[in-house]
């Protein structure tokens, strides 16, 4: 698979195929991210399209100081923020538990054993089978948690990169990541219990 940088070099030469490959690679992650800022899918699609236009026209401005992906997501977040600019002023983060308090006894210890999800147990997690569950689980996360989890765990950005893309502090990044991951875990757990 061509790296982003190879594709970018070809894009500078005006290579249409390189453009299509990049779009194929990032269109859905970008839509998912944009969707967490704006009220409708149509507006999200516009923000994504604007972003691609910015890339094509502004490609000379990419200096390689960040990865292409981080640069791309930053442009997108800027456009999506503008588009969704009835900007939900960020409420301070309310406390939220990682695990439902009902799961602990009065001493703060687990009331019931925690299941192992190990490879060889009957709770074995088959990556392919979990795709749809994870997708809908992500949709259910509050927008800011979803942004962080998507960028960190789905797209594999570092915490510094996520802070740069979303313009949030390292502390808030961690809080949102913690909540998002623990919420996703709960969703998987509920699915396993049903299976």
């Amino acid at each position, binding site marked *: 698979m061509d790296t982003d940088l190879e594709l970018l070099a070809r894009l500078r030469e005006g290579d249409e195929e390189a453009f299509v490959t990049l779009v194929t690679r990032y269109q859905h992650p970008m839509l998912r991210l944009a969707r967490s800022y704006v009220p409708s899918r149509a507006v999200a699609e516009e923000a994504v399209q604007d972003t691609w236009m910015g890339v094509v026209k502004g490609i000379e401005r990419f200096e390689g100081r960040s990865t292409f992906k981080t640069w791309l997501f930053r442009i997108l977040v800027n456009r999506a923020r503008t588009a969704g600019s009835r900007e939900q002023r960020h409420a301070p983060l309310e406390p939220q538990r990682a695990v439902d308090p009902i799961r602990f006894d009065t001493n703060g210890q687990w009331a019931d054993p*925690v299941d192992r999800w190990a490879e060889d147990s009957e709770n074995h997690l088959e990556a392919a089978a979990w795709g749809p569950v994870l*997708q809908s689980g992500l949709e259910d996360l509050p927008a800011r948690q979803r942004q962080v989890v998507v960028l960190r765990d789905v797209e594999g950005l570092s915490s510094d990169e996520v802070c740069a893309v979303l313009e949030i502090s390292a502390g808030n990044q961690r809080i949102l990541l913690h909540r998002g991951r623990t919420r996703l875990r709960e969703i998987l757990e509920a699915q396993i219990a049903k299976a």
Partner: protein
Amino acid sequence: MLSLRRRDIVCQEAVELVTDYLEGTLSRRSRRRFEAHLRACPNCSAYLEQIRMTIDLAGTIEPEDLSPEARADLTELYRRWRSE
């Protein structure tokens, strides 16, 4: 020997430290206490393992393929942007 030291953490506290632990942002002392708790607590070990698998699974989400229409639209836009 087995009496709870004042600084020991309980499960309900341990689960709140998982992300900081994985991010490597716990103080050295907190990390030691957390790891000591894990060694003694199969439930919290299992919980940490579940979080790790959640992260791994999130990393397996594949982007869907682009529809041929979307691809054609974007190609056309590309040509327009280039010519502007």
